[in-house]
C-alpha cells in the first residue's frame, strides 16, 4: 500500500465482531436513555430523524400531489415548469443546506426544508406523469356518466394514478432518508445523522457501524412499508 512511515498503522482500530457487539449492546441496551441533551440513546436519535422526515416528507407530499395533479392535467403548465423542475431536482440536499440555514431563520425548519425539497421532485414528477397517463377510456366512462368533477378526481384520476404516485412517494422517501443524515450532520443537535457525526468525531467506528446498520434497517423497513402500500394500491388492468 506504500504508506509513509507516518501512516501509523491503525488496522487494529477497525472493530472486531466482539468489539462491535459490545458497542452495540451498550447502545441498544437502553436505546431511549436521556442523560441530558448531550447524551441521548440511539433509539431517541432515530426517533428524532424519523420525526424530521415525517414532517419534511409529509409536507412534500402535501404540496407535490396537488401540484402534480395540476401539472399532469395541464400540458401548458407542464411545459412551463419542466425546465425548473429539471434543474432543481438534481441539487444535493447538502448543497441546499447552506441556503436553507441562511434564509430560513428557524431552528428545525432548515432540516425539514431540506427533506422537503429533496423528496418533493419524485412525488411531483410521478404524480404529474401518472395523472397525464390515465387511460382515456376511464375518463370517457366518467364523462359519459356525467360524473361531477370532484368525484372524477377522487374516484377516477386519483385511484388510476395511485400506483405511479405511490412509486414516486417511495422513491421520495428513499431520498428523504438519504438526505436526513446529511442534513443532521450540518444542522446537528439530534438525529441519527448527528449521532454518526458525533461518533465519527470520537473515532468510534463501532458506533458508526452500528448507526449505519440502523440507518439501513430503518430505511429498509420504510421501503417495505411503502412496497406494501404500493401492492395494495396497484390494480391489475
Amino acid at each position, binding site marked *: 500500500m506504500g504508506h509513509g512511515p507516518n501512516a501509523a498503522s491503525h488496522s487494529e482500530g477497525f472493530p472486531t465482531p466482539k468489539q462491535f457487539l459490545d458497542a452495540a449492546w451498550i447502545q441498544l441496551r437502553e436505546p431511549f436513555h436521556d442523560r441530558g441533551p448531550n447524551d441521548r440513546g440511539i433509539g431517541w436519535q432515530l426517533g428524532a430523524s424519523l420525526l424530521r422526515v415525517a414532517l419534511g416528507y409529509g409536507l412534500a407530499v402535501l404540496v407535490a400531489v396537488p401540484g402534480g395533479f395540476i401539472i399532469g392535467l395541464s400540458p401548458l403548465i407542464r411545459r412551463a415548469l419542466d425546465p425548473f423542475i429539471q434543474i432543481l431536482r438534481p441539487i444535493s440536499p447538502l448543497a441546499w443546506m447552506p441556503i436553507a440555514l441562511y434564509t430560513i431563520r428557524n431552528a428545525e425548519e*432548515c432540516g425539514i426544508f431540506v427533506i422537503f425539497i429533496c423528496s418533493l421532485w419524485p412525488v411531483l414528477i410521478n404524480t404529474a406523469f401518472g395523472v397525464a397517463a390515465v387511460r382515456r377510456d376511464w375518463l370517457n366512462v366518467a364523462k359519459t356518466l356525467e360524473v361531477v368533477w370532484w368525484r372524477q378526481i377522487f374516484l377516477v384520476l386519483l385511484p388510476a394514478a395511485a400506483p405511479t404516485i405511490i412509486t414516486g412517494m417511495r422513491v421520495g422517501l428513499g431520498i428523504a432518508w438519504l438526505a436526513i443524515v446529511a442534513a443532521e450532520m450540518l444542522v446537528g443537535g439530534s438525529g441519527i445523522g448527528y449521532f454518526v457525526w458525533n461518533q465519527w*468525531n470520537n473515532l468510534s467506528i463501532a458506533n458508526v457501524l452500528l448507526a449505519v446498520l440502523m440507518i439501513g434497517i430503518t430505511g429498509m423497513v420504510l421501503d417495505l412499508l411503502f412496497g406494501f402500500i404500493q401492492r395494495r394500491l396497484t390494480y391489475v388492468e
Partner: protein
Amino acid sequence: SCGIMHFSSGLGRRGFLGGLAAAGISGTAHANSVVPVEKAELKVGFVPISCAAPLIMAVAKGFFQEEGLNVHLQKIAGWALVRDRLLNGELDASQLLAPMPISLSLGLGSAAQPVRAITMQNINGQAITLALKHHNRRDPRDWKGMTFAIPFEYSMHNLLLRDYLAHYGLDPDHDVTLRITSPPDMVANLRAGNIDGFLGPDPFNQRAVYEQIGFIQTLTAQIWDGHPCCAFGMTQPFIDAYPNTYSALQRAMIRAAAWMNAPENRLEAARIMAQPAYLNQPEIVIRQSLTGHYADGLGVVQDNPHRAGYSPYPYYSMAMWIESQLRRWGYLQRPTDALKLAREIYLFDDVVQQARVVGPLSGLQDPVAGGFPEFSVLGQTFPRAGGQAL
C-alpha cells in the same frame, strides 16, 4: 502580489543568512541541520481559521522554502478529517487542535497513535460569541438550557468553555447542550437560531459581529491569557524516519510564529490570509481579529492586543492542563503519568533547541526555561504551587 513577492524574497534572504549564522554560533551539534532534508515535498493540512496563520505565513513568506521544504498546503473541512488524513498517511504534518496529539496518543476513542505537537501555532485567538438576542444575558449563570457550538471534543474550545461554565456554576454536561459544529456552520446556525452561542476560532467570532448576528461575550485571552489553541503536529514514525525534515519544519514554524507575533506584520498577514486559497474571508474581519482592535457587536470598539498571539513553544504545563481537564470531564479515565506524557507528546525541548539554531528573532519571546510556566486560568493558578509538575 508583485510587491509581496519582492518583500518576501528580501526577507527570506535575511532569514536564510540568519539561520546560517545561528548554526555557526551554536557550534557543531546542529551543523547537520542545514544538510538537505530527507523529504522535501510535504503535504500539510490546515483548517481555514486564524490559528493557521503561522502555517500560512511559512508558505506565503517562504520560511519553508528557506529550509529546503516544498510544502503543499491542503485546506481541510473539519478536525475529524484532519485526524483521519494524518493517521492515514495522506498528510505528512498538519495543524492540529492542541489537545489532539494528547487524545490521539492516549487512544481516546480509538487505538493509540503516537502523534506529536512539534510546535505550538498560536496562543489566544478564540472567543465566546453569543447571539445578539442574548445581549441582556451576559452573566453565564443565566445560560442554563442554552446550546453552544464547539468545533471538536478534543479542542481547547471545548475545555475552555467547560471550565468557564463550571466556573460560573453550570454543569456543562447537563445544564447546556454542547454541539460539535464546523466553524462556518457556527455562524449560520447562530443566525438560524439553532445555537445560542459558540466558543469558536477566529475569524468566525468577528464574522458573527460583522454579520450583525452576534456579539463577543469574552475573548479566551480573558479566560486564560496565553492559552494554546492549535498545534502543529505529525506522527512519531515520521519524526523517526525524517529527523532533518522534522527539525527544518520546526525552524520554519518558529520563524513564522515570530513573524506573526510582531504586531507590525498583522496587517500584511490579514491581507494574505483573506485570499481565497487560505481563509477566504473578508480582510476586515481577519484584521480585526488579528489586531485586537475590533467591534464587539454591542456598539463598542474594543482594544485588546492580546486577542491573538503566536508562540511556538509547546509547554509541558499546557499539556498537563489539557490532560487534567480531559480527566475532569471524563474523557480520560485510566491512570496515566501526566508528566511523562507531556514530555513525550509536547516536544518543547526540541523547539527550544531549534529556536537556538534559528537565533534571536524580533517577535519571538524567550522560552520559559524547563517548560513549566505557571498560568492563571480564570483566576486559578496552574500548576498549583507544589504540584507534581514542579
